[in-house]
């Protein structure tokens, strides 16, 4: 019977191509628009560390000035001072402690045909790799000894390895960065976490760093972050006391993320942070009230407003538009189905039960939905392409990629939407009194 109903749907839809096109266009437009904005939002709302969300914790200490908070209402800085980071790297029980900051250094490829170019470098402690789990294709990260001794080792990102080493296993080879040779210890596979959890303060979307070297090397080279460096007191200006002064200042510029073993350790680490700040207060630091944060990944992304309010509003508007499209489809289907009163009457007279008619007309709605869904999918892809063109070269560009799971979601939404739209017209159609329709024809 399903095949018969499908065939009847095709015959019926072919009979009035303009009406059919209107219905498909209404569903397609609604689906296209809502799925485009939903794709952007779902990329924004992603959590690459969802599987250990509660154990990976972002450390925030409020070392800001007494006069005003870092950000209203009473938000602590999202970055940390070098002084606190080094203290916390030494003390406090955690499974992993990943401190990092980004900068840019020149990379000189061994091949003569490649000209040197500037590359985003992340100066990070070796724990960065187990915490953020970039896919290691060859080799591995580095350990505590390399961190301590500022050993010239490097983990190379996928693209850089393709470009400089032709995609080979380059572990053991040399990479010249900033005028020094680094031994390649690890090579990553393609890695593009969205949002970029380890560093959101300069935009949570966009490409990740391509080269990773030990944190201590950045300090040895007297580098600052190429992203955000914020100070609250004039006395902390690095020019006044040189790089040593910068390191001892309360200026914030470093990311610190810890991974804890269990909830017990999370609670213990929270207590440890409070004790640490109380201790520092005695030394005259931390003029503000105790205001530490130890956010989980999702809390951290939410606090950083990685998903903008505009994006949410846009999705609501798009779904409201879908609703309008569906209401239009309801109207069109109602007109179409009620125009078939004599057919309904006849089918009832020759033995069709109400559920059989219900199935027939709902199948027709579903066909409209599936075709509308395919159109919607095409429009979504076009919409995302337009967004990518519009935001080409910016971090927003990364948001406009279709997740193929969403293809299924799109088709599902289209099907459910069209079935919902078809429900009332179908029900109305089934209420047709066969006797009156047969006589009036």
């Amino acid at each position: 019977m399903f095949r018969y109903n499908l065939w009847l749907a095709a015959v019926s839809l072919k009979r009035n191509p303009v009406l059919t096109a209107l219905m498909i266009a209404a569903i397609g437009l609604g689906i296209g628009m809502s799925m485009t904005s939903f794709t952007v939002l779902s990329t924004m709302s992603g959590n690459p560390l969802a599987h250990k969300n509660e154990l990976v914790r972002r450390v925030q200490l409020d070392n800001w000035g007494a006069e005003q908070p870092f950000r209203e209402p009473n938000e602590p800085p999202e970055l940390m001072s070098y002084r606190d980071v080094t203290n916390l790297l030494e003390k406090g029980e955690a499974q992993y402690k990943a401190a990092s900051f980004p900068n840019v250094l020149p990379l000189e490829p061994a091949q003569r045909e490649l000209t040197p170019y500037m590359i985003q470098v992340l100066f990070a402690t070796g724990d960065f790799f187990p915490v953020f789990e970039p896919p290691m294709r060859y080799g591995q990260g580095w350990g505590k000894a390399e961190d301590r001794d500022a050993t010239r080792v490097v983990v190379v990102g996928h693209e850089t390895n393709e470009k400089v080493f032709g995609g080979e296993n380059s572990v053991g080879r040399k990479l010249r960065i900033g005028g020094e040779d680094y031994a390649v210890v690890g090579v990553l596979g393609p890695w593009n976490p969205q949002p970029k959890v380890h560093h959101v303060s300069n935009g949570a979307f966009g490409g990740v760093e391509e080269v990773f070297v030990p944190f201590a090397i950045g300090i040895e080279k007297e580098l600052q972050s190429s992203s955000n460096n914020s100070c609250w007191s004039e006395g902390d200006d690095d020019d006044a006391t040189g790089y040593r002064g910068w390191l001892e200042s309360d200026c914030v510029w470093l990311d610190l993320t810890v991974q804890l073993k269990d909830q017990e350790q999370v609670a213990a680490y929270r207590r440890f942070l409070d004790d640490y700040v109380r201790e520092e207060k005695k030394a005259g630091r931390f003029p503000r009230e105790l205001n530490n944060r130890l956010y989980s990944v999702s809390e951290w992304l939410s606090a950083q407003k990685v998903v903008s309010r505009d994006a949410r509003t846009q999705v609501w508007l798009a779904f409201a538009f879908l609703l309008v499209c569906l209401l239009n489809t309801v109207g069109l289907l109602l007109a179409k189905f009620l125009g078939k009163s004599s057919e309904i009457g006849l089918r009832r007279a020759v033995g069709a039960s109400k559920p059989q008619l219900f199935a027939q007309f709902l199948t027709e709605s579903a066909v409209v939905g599936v075709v509308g869904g395919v159109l919607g999918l095409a429009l979504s892809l076009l919409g995302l392409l337009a967004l990518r063109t519009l935001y080409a070269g910016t971090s927003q560009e990364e948001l406009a990629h279709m997740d193929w799971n969403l293809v299924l979601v799109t088709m599902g939404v289209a099907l459910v939407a069209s079935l919902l739209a078809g429900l009332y017209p179908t029900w109305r159609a089934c209420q047709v009194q066969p006797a009156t329709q047969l006589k009036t024809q």
Partner: protein
Amino acid sequence: MLKMKNLSKVYRTHMIETHALRGFDIHVREGEFVAVSGPSGSGKTTFLNIAGLLEDFSAGDFHLDGIDVRGMDDAARSRLRNEKIGFIFQGFNLMPDLNLFDNVDVPLRYRKFDAAERKRRIDAALGRVGLSSRMKHYPSELSGGQQQRVAIARALAGSPRLLLADEPTGNLDSLMARGVMELLEEIHSQGTTIIMVSHDPELAARAQRNVHIVDGQVTDFDEEPRFDAPAANTPSPVAAPPQIA
């Protein structure tokens, strides 16, 4: 075949009650050809709709082929309608998007016959009304008389025990009307019970028995047929009618 006793049908709105049928008694025997006549609004169509299980009745008894249909749910009525009753309407009620084959196929689809059985029945039914060669044509390509023949083929394809015809020649000229009437007589001669509503006294006179309805009641009822009805179980060329459970 069809027995109604003290049947009534009341249409109610919030203002008025209309008695379409009241104290309605009729008994149509297996294999009879009954013509029902009466002035407009007398209740002829209401009777036919109730007889065809398209409408429910308000009170009384109604047995169809020995089955008490009172209180039957929609699915059971649909099944009974599909298996035992064929309809012929004044307006033919063919589906314009479907060719003749698919039009005749409509009732068979709800009977859950397999494709081969459906084809056999459609071929036989269209053959019986003389339209085998036009199976792939659409209703709009046929004359009124031919369209009514397709409607008759559709009604016959399921081998119904009872054929209900509501002014079957009302939209046809006299020549076409005669052809359709002859076809009905032939179907009747092969054993199918027919109840036909008609305004035309000439056509009504060709039935075995005439029933006159006025104000929702049977006023003139020939209890004895004017000529003998054929044996009830005469095989039809389409298929043997299903046996009563």
